[in-house]
């Protein structure tokens, strides 16, 4: 008796609208998790004040950051962009200068802030110091083992490099000269 009428299709044009709504809902209520950061290991807490080590001052690289976020490295004002290079030069002492570290094994970095220093500057300084070590380690990895970065080396190779250039940053109690807001 003729063709049966085609059943009315559900109008699916509003599917796109529903999908848009759900998408915008998710965009607004969630955030892409920020799970990266600068890894730091704190020293153990002890009630006694740290023992006064008789350190040879040539092996200590002092970095002071004041309440105005300015840097004083071994008594000289320094810009944060120059810090990494100066640190590398101090640790490795390629020209064997008598005022720089005796050897990379004995090089110590001493970092001191003020209570009014901003965290942004502190992190930038810490980052530059960490980057200096990172670059030195990578240079060793390429020189000794012909690998691009230290992460590509085996555990034993990494331990060897880190034994010769140990990561030693000593953080002192902050001074309270600045205006801590």
């Amino acid at each position: 008796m003729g063709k049966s009428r085609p059943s009315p299709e559900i109008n699916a044009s509003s599917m796109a609208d529903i999908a848009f709504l759900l998408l915008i809902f998710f965009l607004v209520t969630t955030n892409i998790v920020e799970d990266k950061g600068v890894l730091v290991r704190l020293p153990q807490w002890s009630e006694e004040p740290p023992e006064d080590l008789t350190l040879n001052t040539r092996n200590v690289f002092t970095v002071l950051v004041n309440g105005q976020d300015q840097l004083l490295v071994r008594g000289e004002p320094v810009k944060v962009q120059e810090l990494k290079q100066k640190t590398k030069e101090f640790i490795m002492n390629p020209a064997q200068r008598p005022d720089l570290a005796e050897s990379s094994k004995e090089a110590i970095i001493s970092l001191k802030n003020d209570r009014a220093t901003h965290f942004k500057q502190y992190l930038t300084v810490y980052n530059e110091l960490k980057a200096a070590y990172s670059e030195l380690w990578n240079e060793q990895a390429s020189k000794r083992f012909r690998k691009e970065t230290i992460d590509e080396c085996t555990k034993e190779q990494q331990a060897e490099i880190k034994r010769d250039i140990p990561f030693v940053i000593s953080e002192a109690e902050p001074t309270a000269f600045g205006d801590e807001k």
Partner: protein
Amino acid sequence: MAKFAKKRSNTSPTISTASLPDIIFILLFFFMVVVKLRETNIKVKSITPTATELTKLEKKSLVNTMYIGRPLTQYQNVYGTKPRLQLNDKIADLAEIPIFLERHKVKVPEVQRQGITTSLKIDGDVTMGFVTDVKTSLRKAGQLKLNYSAKKRTERSGF
């Protein structure tokens, strides 16, 4: 001998939009998988600075998070303008740090407890006095592995 005459349509061909919902659904599923529902209501301004020496926090279950920043404007008459610490959903005092750490620790199996890291999301504007106090509290509580949360700074974008 042309057997097939070329059909000539008298309207210009329109782009079919039938697959638009499919594209939207794909985007939607992408977001559902990649993001995590924000579980805490952040009461402090916590915009982390940029850095280059970043390590990814591998196992989420071994990470507890602390927010440090100045309270948002709507909370300032209650909490003030000085930097404050936020644990979970509320602003906390330094004395509550050991309890917070312990509560997280019990959820982690014994063998993995050494790997527990505390992720500190600190606003760039916070002064180091408060941060040092928090670090001292963490040291006293035995939590030595920290991670200063930061965004990646490319070499070119400068300081």
